[in-house]
């Protein structure tokens, strides 16, 4: 039974991947672009999931790190003239390094205190990018040249899809390992974790740095898809959006960030372009309403809620079978 379920899951995942691979040939160019962006955002949500979902530390600086990753890539490729394949990992490393510098003092604060320290950091980064025109490129922003093999829209789609799959695999490796369990122990009860020998600060810092590396990657991919950058990429509102995607999708799961990000991103885009005046004008009202309702009725997000419904249905089914046998 267990093995069968495992095979079924693997088959379902493969089918999903197949569909994802086929999509560029079924959809219009615009949809391909939106999906590419949504997948890049998903990588960002996955990065937040590591530090918030598993390690339990609510970072509100991921908007800033997203922008830092994107800008460092853009600057390396366009202004410094570095090679694409060198700039990609370097940009992520720069983000991770900055994450370490921010994490070192801030991870000593806990809960809401950590959230606010990171939020303050994000505000600072936004203001610096807004006012320092040399850095942000001012009114003209920062151009991000694409390598020849990413000129086609579908090529960028597959490029981002590949990184999304890679991120999911790495996250799964981490989460299912002793490392992931250690992070969860810190989320669950930091005092106890320390008492059983877990160096909580070191583990939190590791999770934060890995998370920053990943969100930097998301920034690079967003920059590549858009081809240009401006200071708004460092907005703290993006930190809030990532939080929304994560909690609505389902925190501390791997499918939650995917479902939440792609679902909400497409929902917002759909409401904007549906062409019905009221819907377009009041799309943020509807979006807000969705947030409130989902969080009230599905505290564990869409994936958590779906799981609960599935378990409930299975429980009923089994009970039904048992009754039949008994009868």
């Amino acid at each position, binding site marked *: 039974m267990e093995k069968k379920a495992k095979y079924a899951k693997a088959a379902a995942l493969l089918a999903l991947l197949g569909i994802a691979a086929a999509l560029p040939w079924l959809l219009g160019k615009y949809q391909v672009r939106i999906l590419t962006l949504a997948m890049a955002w998903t990588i960002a949500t996955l990065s937040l999931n590591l530090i918030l979902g598993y390690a339990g530390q609510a970072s509100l600086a991921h908007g800033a790190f997203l922008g830092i990753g994107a800008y460092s890539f853009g600057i390396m490729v366009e202004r410094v003239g570095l090679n694409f394949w060198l700039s990609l990992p370097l940009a992520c490393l720069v983000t991770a390094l900055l994450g370490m510098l921010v994490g070192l003092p801030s991870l000593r604060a806990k809960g809401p205190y950590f959230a606010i320290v990171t939020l303050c950091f994000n505000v600072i980064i936004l203001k610096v990018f807004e006012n320092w025109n040399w850095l942000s490129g001012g009114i003209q922003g920062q151009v991000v040249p694409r390598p020849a093999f990413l000129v086609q829209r579908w090529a960028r789609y597959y490029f981002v899809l590949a990184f999304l799959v890679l991120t999911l695999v*790495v996250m799964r*490796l*981490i989460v299912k*390992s*002793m*490392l992931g*369990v*250690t992070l*969860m*122990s810190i989320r*669950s*009860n930091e*005092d*106890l*974790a*320390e*008492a*059983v*020998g*877990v*160096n*909580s600060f070191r583990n939190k810092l*590791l999770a934060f740095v*890995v998370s920053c590396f990943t969100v930097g990657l998301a920034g690079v991919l967003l920059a590549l898809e858009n081809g240009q950058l401006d200071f708004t990429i460092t907005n703290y509102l993006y930190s809030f959006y990532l939080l929304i995607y994560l909690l609505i999708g389902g925190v501390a799961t791997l499918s939650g960030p995917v479902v939440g990000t792609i679902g909400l991103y497409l929902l917002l885009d759909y409401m904007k372009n549906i062409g019905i005046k009221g819907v377009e004008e009041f799309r943020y009202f509807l979006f807000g309403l969705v947030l409130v309702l989902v969080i009230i009725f599905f505290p564990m997000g869409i994936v958590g809620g779906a799981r609960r419904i599935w378990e409930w249905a299975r429980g009923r089914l089994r009970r039904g079978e048992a009754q039949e046998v008994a009868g």
Partner: protein
Amino acid sequence: MTALLQVQGLTRLFGGLVAVNKVDFEVPQGSILGIIGPNGAGKSTLFNLIGGALPPSEGRIVFAGKDITGWRPYRVAREGIARTFQTTALFEELPVYINLAIGRRMRTRSGFWDVLLRTPRMRREREETTAKVLEVLEFTGLGKYANEPAGSIPQEAQKRLAIAVALMGEPRLMLLDEPTGGVGMGETDEIIDLIGRVRDRGITVCVIEHKMRMMMSLADRMVVLNFGVKIAEGEPRQVCEDPAVIEAYLGECIA
């Protein structure tokens, strides 16, 4: 017998309040020490000081000949001191077996890169951890709960689980803060039995309790605290007859 743990002149102030006042005692290797005292006597604070959760204001803590005063909790734990908390602390939403695995984490060395590259070291440690989990589940009789979230098993089993988690790191000294607190009278036997068997494994134990009767049979020696001051120390029987203790406990233990 040499002393595994020596506490010398340990003091902790909270604002102007003295929670623990110049307490000295020793715990000999392989023994069970009972620490008793009325509510607010400073017992839990004492454990927090030894375990590193609080830095002491004054005094020294020497463990196996090493001065561990002011160490962070995880270093104290790695040195071989395990502890449980008064209000049962577990990783509640995680299954019992994962709780145990976390208790083992400090004895494993695989890190981020081992996880990404799936090194042989990680596989070996994973197997070792699994074996240890099975062994401790057996030892504490928690096998039937292995897959359930720790927060949802019965109170008494949670108490045993807390001890089991502490056991996973193969400590030399175990600090148990009210291991039977909040458990019905009829259910304490199993826990007391478990503590005895823990000692039989060669682990030195310090127990905080205020159920004095239970301590009489379990402890080799007892320390009595009142208002942060040590008022008596010695064999259980002898301590119980101490007039200062009788006064502090309002004659509770004579019965």
